[in-house]
């Protein structure tokens, strides 16, 4: 019997068009992804590399869930739906034959459809390059197995898991809708897993818990270098195997359970309730009831009442639906978790500020809302038809308009519920967390004025689709396809013009400092624009409202045309006008007042910039020696008027005949040179982007060539006066435009810079090639380059300069620039501030203006200088002021003692809105993002105090960056960043102890390994570092490791000597990475030299592994601990290819007692033994006698070395 049913199922599936459509869809996915190069592969990884295919295969097997539910959900349900029981019962069918026949017959097709992606990928990689859709060098040549290995290793198991769950659930519940719920819960399981990955400590757990292995795969391969991604078939590791065993057992058990519980006869029996036959007597008695005349009333008032009744029914139909509640519950669970955990920095959560909560609600909750709205709009439109009641309903005397708008209103009611939940739960969680600044206005504006209209727009679109398509499932499909297409076009089509993307709004972000700020206008106008469009669209669709029996399209068209009169015409006319008017206004702002450019236009322009102007790169230009600025800041107009007087000197040996000035596009300025207004020509202009068709002429690039009236001879001085205005007009398509704000201005422009800036060139080789440029290998010249050595890294327009400024701003705001405040006064209702910097600084400036509370303190450093401390902050952000303050005090003292005295008499930190999340160190002035440290919740003492650390880092830049200024050669950035990172780490360790640093070091190691894994060109050695992951993460790790080997004193001495020979040097040569290396080498003993070479001149990785440990009681509290471990060392080349290296290196072996807490309640580890051993490669066994009960042991337990797999270094002692 099994065979017949199995074959029947196969034949049935073969006849279904859906089977072919599913296959085709997945085939196309694979084809398009590969043929167009839309894969997650970074530039040095092939689009069809084993890793890429595996990653895509796992992702698509998750999407295959939809197919699994469609194919596996119906085989049993079909018999219920079509009432085939009557003849099925009459055949000699066995339960096993029926159950397994149906299961396997359908599963075969799931397996076949599942290969669609892989076949598509094969064809895509074969076809793509020959049509030039994807660069040929991005497609590797691989055999068939490369494409199918991931399918067999990972894909099939995912398909089996989803299939058996869906099939079993229908078998057990006889209900096909249960699949929706099951999908939602599987999805929740996946999201939960994804969620936990944020926490480094929980990653091992996540690898096992993720039912579809997305996270498992991601975590297992996260450190794969480009070379490995290209060459290694992703192995079936122990963790992956465990994960599969767990989840396949789950699938197996569920299926077996379903099989044993399954009762063939009961399954097919219709649901019935016993109906009592009424007795004859009662019938006779009832028959007398008289049908009396009734009054029917259709007055407008009654109609409104009926409408309202319908609205309530529509609303309650959704609200009471158990599936709605299940999905919403899922959403709320995530909302609460997201609210509860929120943003974290180094594992430290932020306080639950309302401005943050309004971000969190978009993390996961929004997705559930999307599902709800998408799904229930279709349900509402087709509700009558689904039950078959429409044939009665549609003959009732209620107008189309009232039926339809009642559904619309009911759904809008649901949307109101959906947007109200984040408010209620937000206030609740804030209260629970003791945060009482509720900011209800932020909630109300965000939820009811921004989110709700967005949801309404979604409803309008869905309704439109469902009205036109007039089939529930096709409608869901079309609506979903529209959303996916829009998102794909935006992400891969390099086109994000919001006027073209239904319901899309310009990006925005709430800030406590700037509120909704300048985003309010674009949000309002774009919402209005789309709302008009949505209403037009829906009104048109409403003309197709179907009543009674569905007719042909021609007939529906005829009816729609008949209905096109009266109110619909007026609504369409008004809204169309409104749409056009707001569209014109938005266009005017985005494309006339501003200059919208898509990313591909930007790339093309940047390439043209390089092609046209590169010839000027080595043009000799004067250097600025003093700067005097008068700046008037108009926060309400978002503009800054600036008058800058620059004294320039020709420091070169060649005469200078022309000045080359470049500035950002929004800077308008005139140049007065030695008292004469100069004219200029602009050598470069672009064609306007096609979308900005109203702009006439050319888009002139702000690069000017001024012919000097008289040649500036070597050593000659000249005076340049720049009158400039920077103003933001209207609003833009996207982007924060954050420099000049109503409150919290942080402006670094206003003065053009000299010459061609190579940093602006396109760096991606793929984009360069596409735009006709050669690949670019290294940004900066080698350390020995003479010009590089005599140029400063952060601004090559000047060496050190004199600086003073007079700033004016709106009354109430404080304006700040580097320098000491001389005078402060009010004039014409504006506040004026005069700053003079009386010692020379780098030409590295910013102007700040905002409403601040000021915290003041001071510290006296060892040379007797008193340093003023000022912290400018938002009035509600006082939580961590002392952490900033203490860090500054500790740092000023320790750094002055260790590396030389602090060069200024003040140190200031200024908070700025969280449109950026960094802190940046200007001379004695540090703008510091709102989202970074000010509102962190440090109530858990074990958490890493990153506010303290980041503050120390920025303070350290006053030494590393401002005293010792890096030159413009390869790797020199490590002088400012690695040294700031390392010295800040030292300071933190002094305050919080080494244990508190562990978390941080782990993040640094993770950051470095991930950074090199996604390297898009080549990994440089540390001394030539050119990437943030090298100079931050790798830098702090290897310097921290070096200190461990040579001691803090030796390293500090080296740094001190290095600082002394370069500090505040006015003349070249300036410091390069080789200079620092030399000083460090000098203080490193020969025995440790291998470490320096390994870390600075090579790319070195260890593979240290704890294998086992056991302890024997040796009496008197002594134990003999035997540790088994292995160690290996590799050198990697720039692509990440590794070769094993000989070694005889110092590596920590540690044995630990149980953790305890010290008197400050900080967690602390208690090493019983921690010694460096000189180790050669291989598996080793050591026996060590210690005092105290051992709990854990390991090799390199603190992760001081760069270890490919850092978390297998420690294990328990048996």
């Amino acid at each position, binding site marked *: 019997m099994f065979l017949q049913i199995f074959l029947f199922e196969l034949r049935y599936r073969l006849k279904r068009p859906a089977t072919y459509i599913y296959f085709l869809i997945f085939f196309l996915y694979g084809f398009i992804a590969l043929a167009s190069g839309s894969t997650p592969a970074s530039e040095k990884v092939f689009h069809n590399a084993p890793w890429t295919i595996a990653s895509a295969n796992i992702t698509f097997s998750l999407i295959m869930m939809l197919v699994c539910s469609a194919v596996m959900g119906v085989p049993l349900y079909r018999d219920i739906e079509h009432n085939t029981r009557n003849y099925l019962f009459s055949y000699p069918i066995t339960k096993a034959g029926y159950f397994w026949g149906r299961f396997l017959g359908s599963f075969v097709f799931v397996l076949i459809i599942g290969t669609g992606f892989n076949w598509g990928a094969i064809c895509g990689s074969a076809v793509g390059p020959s049509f030039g859709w994807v660069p040929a060098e991005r497609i590797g040549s691989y055999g068939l197995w490369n494409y199918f290995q991931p399918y067999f290793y990972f894909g099939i198991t995912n398909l089996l898991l989803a299939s058996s769950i869906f099939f079993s659930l229908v078998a057990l519940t006889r209900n096909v809708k249960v699949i929706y719920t099951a999908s939602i819960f599987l999805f929740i399981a996946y999201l939960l897993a994804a969620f936990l990955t944020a926490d480094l400590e929980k990653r091992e757990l996540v690898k096992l818990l993720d039912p579809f292995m997305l996270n498992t795969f991601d975590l297992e391969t996260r450190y794969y270098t480009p070379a490995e991604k290209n060459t290694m078939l992703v192995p079936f590791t122990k963790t992956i195997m465990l994960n599969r065993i767990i989840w396949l057992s789950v699938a197996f058990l569920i299926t077996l359970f379903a099989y044993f519980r399954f009762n063939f006869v009961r399954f097919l029996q219709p649901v019935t309730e016993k109906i009592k036959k009424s007795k004859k007597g009662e019938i006779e008695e009832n028959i007398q009831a008289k049908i009396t005349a009734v009054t029917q009333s259709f007055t407008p008032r009654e109609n409104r009442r009926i409408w309202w009744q319908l609205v309530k029914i529509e609303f309650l139909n959704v609200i009471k639906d158990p599936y709605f509640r299940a999905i919403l519950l899922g959403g709320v669970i995530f909302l609460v978790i997201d609210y509860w955990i929120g943003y974290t920095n180094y594992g430290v959560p932020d306080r639950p500020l309302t401005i943050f909560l309004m971000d969190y609600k978009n993390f996961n909750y929004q997705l559930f809302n999307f599902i709800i709205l998408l799904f229930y709009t279709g349900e509402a439109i087709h509700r009558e038809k689904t039950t078959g009641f429409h044939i009665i309903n549609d003959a009732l*005397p209620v107008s189309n308009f009232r039926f339809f708008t009642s559904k619309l209103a009911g759904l809008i009611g649901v949307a109101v519920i959906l947007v109200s939940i984040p408010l209620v739960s937000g206030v609740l969680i804030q209260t629970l967390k003791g945060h009482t600044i509720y900011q209800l206005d932020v909630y109300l504006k965000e939820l009811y004025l921004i989110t709700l209209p967005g949801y309404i727009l979604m409803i309008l679109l869905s309704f439109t689709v469902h009205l036109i398509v007039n089939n529930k499932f096709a409608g869901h499909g079309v609506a979903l396809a529209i959303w996916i297409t829009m998102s794909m076009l935006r992400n891969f089509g390099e086109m994000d013009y919001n006027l073209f993307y239904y319901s899309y709004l310009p990006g925005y972000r709430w800030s406590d400092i700037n509120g909704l700020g300048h985003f309010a206008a674009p949000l309002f106008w774009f919402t209005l624009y789309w709302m008009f469009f949505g209403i037009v669209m829906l009104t048109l669709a409403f003309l197709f409202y179907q009543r009674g029996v569905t007719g042909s399209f021609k007939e529906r068209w005829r009816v729609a045309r008949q209905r096109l009169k009266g109110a619909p015409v007026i609504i369409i006319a008004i809204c169309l006008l409104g749409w056009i008017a707001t569209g014109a206004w938005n266009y005017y702002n985005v494309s006339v007042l501003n200059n919208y450019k898509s990313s591909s236009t930007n790339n093309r322009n940047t390439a043209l910039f390089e092609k046209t102007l590169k010839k000027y790169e080595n043009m000799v230009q004067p250097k600025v020696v003093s700067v005097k600025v008068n700046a008037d800041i108009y926060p309400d107009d978002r503009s800054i008027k600036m008058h800058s007087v620059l004294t320039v000197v020709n420091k070169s040996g060649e005469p200078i005949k022309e000045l080359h000035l470049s500035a950002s596009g929004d800077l308008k300025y005139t140049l007065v040179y030695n008292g004469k207004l100069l004219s200029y020509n602009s050598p470069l202009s672009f064609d306007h982007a096609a979308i900005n068709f109203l702009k006439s002429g050319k888009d002139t690039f702000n690069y000017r060539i001024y012919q000097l009236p008289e040649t500036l001879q070597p050593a000659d001085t000249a005076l340049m006066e720049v009158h400039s205005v920077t103003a933001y007009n209207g609003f833009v398509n996207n982007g924060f435009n954050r420099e000049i704000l109503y409150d919290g201005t942080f402006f670094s422009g206003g003065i053009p810079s000299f010459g061609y800036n190579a940093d602006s060139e396109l760096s991606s080789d793929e984009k360069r090639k596409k735009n006709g440029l050669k690949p670019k290998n290294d940004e900066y010249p080698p350390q020995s380059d003479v010009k590089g050595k005599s140029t400063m890294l952060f601004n090559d327009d000047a060496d050190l300069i004199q600086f003073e400024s007079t700033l004016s701003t709106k009354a109430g705001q404080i304006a700040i620039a580097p320098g000491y405040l001389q005078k402060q006064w009010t004039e014409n209702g504006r506040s004026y501030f005069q700053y003079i910097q009386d010692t020379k600084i780098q030409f590295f400036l910013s102007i700040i203006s905002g409403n601040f509370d000021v915290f003041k303190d001071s510290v006296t450093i060892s040379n007797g200088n008193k340093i003023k401390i000022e912290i400018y902050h938002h009035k509600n952000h006082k939580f961590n002021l002392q952490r900033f303050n203490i860090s500054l005090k500790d740092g000023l003292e320790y750094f002055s003692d260790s590396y030389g005295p602090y060069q200024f008499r003040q140190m200031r930190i200024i908070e700025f809105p969280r449109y950026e999340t960094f802190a940046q160190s200007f001379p004695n002035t540090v703008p510091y993002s709102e989202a970074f440290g000010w509102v962190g919740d440090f109530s858990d003492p074990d958490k890493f105090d990153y506010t303290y650390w980041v503050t120390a880092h920025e303070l350290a830049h006053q030494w590393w960056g401002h005293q010792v200024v890096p030159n413009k050669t390869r790797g020199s950035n490590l002088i400012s960043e690695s040294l700031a990172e390392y010295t800040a780490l030292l300071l933190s360790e002094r305050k919080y102890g080494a244990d508190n640093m562990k978390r941080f070091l782990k993040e640094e190691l993770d950051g470095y390994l991930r950074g090199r894994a996604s390297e898009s060109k080549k990994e440089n050695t540390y001394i030539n570092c050119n990437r943030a992951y090298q100079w931050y993460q790798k830098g702090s790790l290897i310097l921290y490791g070096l200190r461990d080997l040579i001691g803090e004193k030796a390293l500090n001495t080296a740094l001190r000597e290095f600082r002394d020979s370069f500090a505040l040097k006015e003349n070249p040569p300036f410091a390069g990475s080789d200079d620092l290396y030399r000083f460090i080498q000098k203080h490193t003993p020969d025995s440790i030299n291998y470490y320096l070479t390994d870390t600075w001149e090579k790319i070195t990785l260890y593979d240290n592994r704890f294998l086992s440990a056991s302890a024997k009681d040796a009496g008197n509290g002594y134990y003999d601990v035997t540790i088994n471990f292995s160690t290996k060392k590799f050198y990697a080349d720039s692509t990440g290819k590794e070769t094993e290296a000989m070694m005889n290196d110092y590596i920590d072996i540690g044995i630990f007692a149980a953790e305890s807490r010290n008197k400050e309640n900080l967690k602390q580890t208690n090493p019983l033994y921690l010694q460096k051993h000189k180790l050669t490669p291989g598996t080793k066994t050591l026996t060590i006698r210690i005092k105290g009960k051992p709990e854990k042991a390991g090799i390199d337990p603190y992760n001081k070395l760069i270890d490919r797999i850092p978390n297998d270094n420690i294990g328990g002692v048996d």
Partner: protein
Amino acid sequence: MQSIFSIQTLSTMQLTINGLSKTYPNGVQALKNVTLTIPQGMFGLLGPNGAGKSSLMRTIATLQEADSGTIFLDDLDVLIKKEEVRKQLGYLPQEFGVYPRVTAEQMLTHIASLKGINNGKQQKEIVAALLQRVNLYKERKKNLGTYSGGMKQRFGIAQALLGNPKLIIVDEPTAGLDPAERNRFYNLLSELGTNTIVILSTHIVEDVRTLCSDFAIICNGEVLRHDNPDEAVNHLQGKIFVKSVDKSTIQNLKEEYEVISVQMKSGQLSVRIYSDTEPGNGFVPTASSLEDVYFHQISSRMDVITL
């Protein structure tokens, strides 16, 4: 009895269908130039499956567009002023679904208020009365999802009769009803149908004879006959003959006579034929029935003899 917007006529109402045609997208021509005048009282529609009865009824019930032709309820253009028609309409479709998790009473109350019956007391009374008359009062608190086919059909009847409809269209209303329920329904319909137009389709030909003052036979979308049932039967009086024959001879008989129906009776076949003259050959005259009229009409269009 009067609704505010309904059209009140002193004389009797009349439904006039003129040249109504409809072709479905799949090419089936459901209605071919149908022209009928339906007066007040009960009007029966007879016809084989797929003849176009339901299409016609749906079109009158405003649920389907026509390709051409007109329908007027007195002066009211049914195809255009749909909403006005719906205010006076009671419609029981041949097939319909219900919300499974709503009780009959809730659903009827809801429909009552959609039909403009807003007076709370009246609404309650009429719902209760209708539930009693269709014998669902006992089950009124049960969810519709638990109803049997017959109960569901009775619920359908109740909703069609809500709100004093002037035009009642019932498509095979007695399908699935036991004989007692069928009688009960016809009594109810007769009681309500005196001042209204009731259009009734059925396969039980004799029901039309007993109930309807007027009837039409439709086949393949065409009206074959429009008449009074008694007159139609009288018209055939003396022209129907019957004979018991052997199965093997049936083919010969079909070629020779206009065979109306063949029935198996205790192993023998009883053949009814239509003949203007005495056929002889063992045929004996018999009383004509409406069924004879029916078969006589449609036998010209299709082979009705199935064995």
